[in-house]
């Protein structure tokens, strides 16, 4: 920029950006791979003019200068093209000549990514690293009074129940009278939470489904996966693998035309139906699939025109009260499958969750409650919703469990916790903590994207462009040029790896507590934390 050139308010320097490209002229081969791979075109070929002064030691000889030209990488400073830190340039560089570096101070870009009056939207999680779940320790170790178990050799039954469980008295009575028993599924306590076909690329979706099928059919682990709101591919609806799938219905009802029409041809019932009322990442906000990702395939499955943004309304618009919203919808969905499929709502973590829960306790068809905390991930949402809206999962799930204990229904309505489980990689520890706080199982999405497909997103705002269909790993893109980067079989393999590793770690947690015959749901006496107020709030031990 020349000194006399006018600057606009949004004129930024490289220094003002959150990520700065460090490039080495010495190492660069000028192959151009980095500029080709950059999903946001943050870098381009730069032609640099450089003046070299030649001064002689001979005083008589006049100094001369020469102008040279060299080629390299130039980082764009236009906010629309700001580097996202994904480091794909580094991944493809044959000589490691290039890498994004995080700015040493808070960036100035954040004040300018609302051009046209449109606030920033993105994918990923709340941009706050760390979390309470990682602070929880398992402190009740079996020592001498009862032997700790051998996690590697002992038999463990780490299953959970999804479905309305009748109290023993009623169960026995209904059994004797041949009455209707609510459907109950025995499943693995770690579920893959709702990530829609559309939010995820076809390769990612297929890889997840294949991994889940392998876990079930080859390894005997009853792992379940939720479709998210986006329908379900027709062939899956008509296959035996549907029983491993939880179909989600949300306020946009996307894909449900296809599902309803497939009903007569279904060979198996789905595992369950999840009615999504809210999502932890963007509570009170509807789903959002931005137009970039709505290609013909997605449009066909969802039953919408291609190339338009698909926002789901924040609420189910045909309903106006909790009774309608929950009771009638649960009943309708139950009826669609002849009352053979558990139907449960999923809500975002909120201080009003107990009102929903209390309503469910009085509804004999409610099969559970999934609560998604503030650290949950999303494919697209406004930055403000992600960063500032929502309720932490730990207290919400604890309150919900203790509410159920008060009315004696802790075994009747299973609670499922989600939102930031494994946010810092500690999947089993976070899951076990939530289970001992009272969850019957946990849902994960983002962790699976990271572990099974190498998602680069982070809570320090790296990448996080799931919303615009340019995912550099091909996980959340609908562009074949991008998603072909993702090998379906390898995704499936990584899903299996992640679940097997989780299983071993979970055993490594429950075995020293002396637990093996049932999942330690609500075993809060095993938990401790060094934060006094958190211990009081969660009703667990304060340990220092």
């Amino acid at each position: 920029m020349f000194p006399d050139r006018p600057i606009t308010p949004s004129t930024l320097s490289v220094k003002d950006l959150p990520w700065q490209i460090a490039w080495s002229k010495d190492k660069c081969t000028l192959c151009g791979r980095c500029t080709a791979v950059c999903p946001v075109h943050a870098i381009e070929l730069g032609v640099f003019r450089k003046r070299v002064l030649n001064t002689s030691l001979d005083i008589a000889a006049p100094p001369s200068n020469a102008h040279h030209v060299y080629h390299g990488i130039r980082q764009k400073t236009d906010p629309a093209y700001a580097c996202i830190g994904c480091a794909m340039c580094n991944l493809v560089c044959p000589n490691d000549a290039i890498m994004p570096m995080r700015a040493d101070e808070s960036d100035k870009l954040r004040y300018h990514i609302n051009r046209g009056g449109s606030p920033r939207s993105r994918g990923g999680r709340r941009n706050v690293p760390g979390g309470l779940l990682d602070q929880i320790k398992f402190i009740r170790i079996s020592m001498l009074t009862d032997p700790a178990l051998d996690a590697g050799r002992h038999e463990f039954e780490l299953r959970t129940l999804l479905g309305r469980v009748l109290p023993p008295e009623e169960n026995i009575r209904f059994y004797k009278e041949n009455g209707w028993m609510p459907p109950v599924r025995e499943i693995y306590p770690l579920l893959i939470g709702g990530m829609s076909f559309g939010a995820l690329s076809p390769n990612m979706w297929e890889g997840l489904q294949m991994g889940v099928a392998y876990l079930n059919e080859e390894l005997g682990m009853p792992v379940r996966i939720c479709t998210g709101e986006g329908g379900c591919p027709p062939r899956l609806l008509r296959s035996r693998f549907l029983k491993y799938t939880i179909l989600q219905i949300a306020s946009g009802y996307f894909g449900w035309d296809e599902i309803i029409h497939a009903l007569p041809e279904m060979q198996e019932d789905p595992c369950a139906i999840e009615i999504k009322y809210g999502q932890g990442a963007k509570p009170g906000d509807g789903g959002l699939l931005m137009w970039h990702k709505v290609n013909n395939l997605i449009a066909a499955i969802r039953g919408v025109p291609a190339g338009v943004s698909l926002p789901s309304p924040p609420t189910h618009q045909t309903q106006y009260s909790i009774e309608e919203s929950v009771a009638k919808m649960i009943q309708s969905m139950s009826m669609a499958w002849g009352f053979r499929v558990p139907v449960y709502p999923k809500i975002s973590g909120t201080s009003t969750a107990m009102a929903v829960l209390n309503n469910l306790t009085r509804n004999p068809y409610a099969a559970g409650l999934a609560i998604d905390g503030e650290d949950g991930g999303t494919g697209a949402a406004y930055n403000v919703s992600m960063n500032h809206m929502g309720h932490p999962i730990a207290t919400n799930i604890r309150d919900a469990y203790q509410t159920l204990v008060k009315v004696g229904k802790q075994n009747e309505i299973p609670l499922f916790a989600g939102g930031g489980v494994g946010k810092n990689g500690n999947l089993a520890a976070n899951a076990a903590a939530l289970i001992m706080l009272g969850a019957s199982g946990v849902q994960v999405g983002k962790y699976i994207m990271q572990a099974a497909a190498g998602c680069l997103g982070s809570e320090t705002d790296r990448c996080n462009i799931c919303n615009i269909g340019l995912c550099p790993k091909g996980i959340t893109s609908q562009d074949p040029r991008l998603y072909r980067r993702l090998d379906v079989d390898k995704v499936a393999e990584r899903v299996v790896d992640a679940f097997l590793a989780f299983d071993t770690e979970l055993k490594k947690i429950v075995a020293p507590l002396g637990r093996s015959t049932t999942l330690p749901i609500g075993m809060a006496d095993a938990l401790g934390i060094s934060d006094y107020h958190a211990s009081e709030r969660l009703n667990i031990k304060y340990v220092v």
Partner: protein
Amino acid sequence: MCRLFAITSKTPLSPMVAIEAMDVMREGHDGSGVGIFLRDLAGPFEDLKDAPILSGIFTEAGIKRLDRHMMDLGFMTKYKISIKVPKVALPGTPRRDVYLIRAYEYPEGWDALPQQEIYDRLVRIRLQLRAMGEEQEDMIVFSFWPDVIMIKEIGDPMKVARHLNLDRKELHARVIMAQGRQNTNYAINLYACHPFFIQGYATMTNGENTAFVPIREYLLSRGMLGYTGYQSDSEVFTHILHYTVQHLGLGLDTYKHVITPLQDDMLEAHPNGRFLKQLKHSCRPLTTDGPNCVIGCLPDHTLFMVQDRKKLRPGVVGGKPGCWAFSSEICGLDAAIPNRDKSKDFQPMHLDTTMVGPDRQEIATCSQTDPLRLPR
């Protein structure tokens, strides 16, 4: 570890039989406490089978409060055993004023009440007395039930028994259960001492139930009369037994299916698999996580032993027609019934429920894989 011993005999026996067996097994317990449960009583109580007997420990002031309270309720003392406490205190055992064993006559008007109502009222009175005692620390109440005596104290079982002179005719009984060791995992408290008793059901446990807290929460939230206390993780076994048999109306053979259900493949092969799967789901919070060996007694005087799935606690049953004993260790059995056919001794494994019925003729064993005797 705790050590357990239970005996059922046609001829009434002195509690010392159990205490001696406990003493033989003393390497297995730390001598920190003893609990004794006597039922099918002989001696003076032979003719008082229907009279509720109050067992507990009282201070002088406590006795006075008790008398006033019972009189107000209309109970008249029919018979009492006074255990005179020696002047020289036993080291390690708190000094007590009175160990009370007192049979009452029901108040007027109770005759017309249905049996269950009487039983519920007895529990309510016991809970009332316990609450009164906890308020002023002057009463500890173990049981208030016809044909049942319970004595619990801190200290070495043999020393405590001699100190209290338990070898007396009035205490002879046909069913005796004894447990040696105080609660080690929670606070030392006589209410944490086994055996535990509720409405005719008694159990004692060797082991630790790591699923205690969620089970306690579940039992407390049942809103059932008497499901309180839980100073020990073993008390839940008694209440689960009561819940299974008394409340749900299931047989003793289902008790083990509640506390340690079968796993999937075995459930599928079970003739009552469908029912058991439902039971497993609906009673999921009652699944214990041992290691535990449970010895218990039903209202009809059946004695039984079950092991949990891990089968990490010792337990053996043996004897001869008319006299059978359940013991943590074989040496305890040898001490109590030396002249038995030892080849018939039975050590229940992880699927077994071993019972000796009120006729005391034989050991009956049922495996969890057997068809259920469902009351239908």
